[in-house]
């Protein structure tokens, strides 16, 4: 597959404050890539650099093989959907979608054809004469996407496009955007801080923290084999239990529990996903809190050495606070981390 985007050594400083420290990334044609990370991790900054709204302090941006580091935004063949939609309030839906094409001096019939095609695709045909203020949040979002589609870009950029919608609409639009991507097949980069959006929509996820790429991979790769403690803790809800420990004689003790015998060399912490913990035989821990979700129960258990262990067990269990619950931590589900927080892979 050919390459849609390649970032090489991208750095960005605002004044003397570095925001991005040398980002290298390649995105294949047709991929749906999600940039995810906590607020301030640099994901939106990176997106703006790709869009051409800001210039990188160092590094190059190549789009479909051509260096476009200094190319003006409009000439990069990119379309962007903004967090606030950024619809022009004084223009109708039709004019909003047609504006970019008019600026690029497309012929009227061609503009009309593209706008109507996009409107039909996004079920906006009945709303073309409305102004943005007469639209609901979801409709505005669709107009913003429509405005991007009509330009027939080589690359779609989405900057947290769903964060202004309510929970129900967000799920709906998530599905719609994913479906749209399948249908149009345009390479897309989607920025979000919502790990559920990242997990459900992405072909590949790029986890960013502190202006550095932490890990790149498919959602399940990242989920099953996090490269470090940050990625391990960031993806998955409830988050992975990360417990510091040490080697005692031949076994590994963390949180006061003897976790495993023969730990890998250099291990200083373990991680285990709440859903990997099972009820029965093993350690017995007192319940701090049991959250009933109906299909599953989330148990907060006290560790002997302080701190807590979260376990998600299927079904409904009415454990009173303080009751001792037997659980086991399967060795195969354990993630090992060294002193620098980097995952230790079994060899």
């Amino acid at each position, binding site marked *: 597959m050919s390459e849609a985007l390649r970032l090489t050594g991208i750095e960005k400083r605002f004044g003397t404050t570095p925001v991005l420290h040398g980002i290298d990334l390649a995105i294949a044609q047709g991929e749906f890539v999600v940039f995810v990370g906590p607020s301030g991790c640099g994901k939106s900054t990176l997106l703006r650099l790709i*869009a*051409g*709204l800001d210039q990188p302090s160092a590094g190059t941006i190549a789009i479909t093989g051509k260096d476009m580091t200094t190319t003006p*935004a*409009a*000439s990069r063949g*990119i*379309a*962007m959907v*903004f*967090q*606030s939609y*950024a*619809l*022009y*309030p*004084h223009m109708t839906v039709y004019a909003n979608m047609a*504006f*970019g094409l008019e*600026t*690029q001096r497309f012929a009227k019939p061609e503009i009309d054809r593209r706008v109507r095609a996009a409107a039909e695709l996004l079920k906006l045909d009945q709303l073309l004469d409305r102004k943005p203020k007469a639209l609901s949040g979801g409709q505005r979002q669709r107009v913003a996407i429509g*405005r991007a589609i009509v330009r027939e870009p080589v690359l779609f950029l989405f900057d947290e496009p769903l964060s202004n919608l309510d929970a129900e609409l967000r799920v709906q639009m998530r599905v719609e955007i994913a479906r749209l991507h399948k249908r149009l097949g345009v390479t897309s980069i989607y920025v979000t801080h919502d790990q559920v959006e990242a997990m459900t929509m992405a072909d590949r996820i790029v986890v960013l923290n502190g202006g550095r790429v932490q890990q790149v991979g498919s959602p399940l790769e990242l989920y099953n084999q996090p490269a470090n403690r940050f990625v391990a803790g960031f993806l998955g809800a409830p988050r992975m239990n990360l417990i510091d420990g040490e080697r005692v004689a031949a076994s590994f003790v963390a949180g006061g529990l003897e976790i495993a015998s023969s730990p890998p060399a250099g291990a200083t912490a373990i991680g285990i996903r709440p859903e990997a913990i099972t009820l029965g035989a093993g350690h017995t821990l007192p319940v701090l809190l049991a959250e009933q979700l109906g299909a599953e129960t989330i148990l907060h258990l006290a560790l002997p050495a302080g701190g807590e262990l979260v376990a998600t067990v299927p079904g409904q269990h009415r454990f009173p606070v303080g009751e001792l619950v037997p659980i086991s931590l399967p060795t195969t589900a354990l993630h090992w981390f060294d002193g620098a927080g980097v995952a230790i892979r079994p060899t």
Partner: protein
Amino acid sequence: MKTTRARLLTHAGLALASLVMIYPVLWMVGSAFKPENAIFTDLTPIPRSLDPVNFVVGWNALAVGFDRFFWNSAVIATLAVAGNLMACSLAGFAFARLEFPGRKLCFALMMMTLMLPYHVTLIPQYVLFLQLGWVDTILPLVVPKFLAADAFFIFLFVQFFRGIPRELDEAAVMDGCGPWRIYWRILLPLSTPVMGTAAIFTFIWTWDDFFGPLIYLNDIQSYTVPLALRTFVDSTSQSSWGQLFAMSTLSLVPVFLFFVFFQNLIIQGIAMSGLKR
């Protein structure tokens, strides 16, 4: 019951205060219909009869008819409005949206000119226009408006543009717009309240301006309405107060109409800018 009475009292008080404020205007309008000898002896604003003679005579009482003065005033006011809207909005756009070296310094300097009284710059300005050969033309009254000399309106535009989300500009950049097109197609159409405010105040201030025309216009053919009104009260000849008041009343009509038609915009503008003169 008590609240009704309290409200009645409040309204009566306010009505009285309004009457005190509007009395001079009413007196002027009333006096326009009174014979000369009754004007200063009769303090009621209501004339005994509606005799339009002062209007008829007053219109042509001077060497040049008032149609000429109204035309002159209208030309200057219209050009001033056009100039201010164009130049101040462009300057405001530059300060609010463009990055250029010295932007903050220029903005600070511009804001400082707000604190200079008109009279401080008067003499140098006059000398400048004299050397340009512009004295006794309307150019000194009009050209500066096209050069964004009105810091107050620039500031008004800057503040308004700053309130428009930058994402709109960025969306326009993605759509292929340069700064000019962003200004013209995105920001200006969204700026009707501030445009309206600037237009109205420029019109009223220019229409009412006495000092500027007094200094720069010498030929009666190019007089504006306020200058012409002064001619009625001439120390060398007899003052025609009735005609003065009649023409003064007429000179208020354009301002009044402006206000009636645009009062919503004016109120919006005042609320928006906290403007008062």
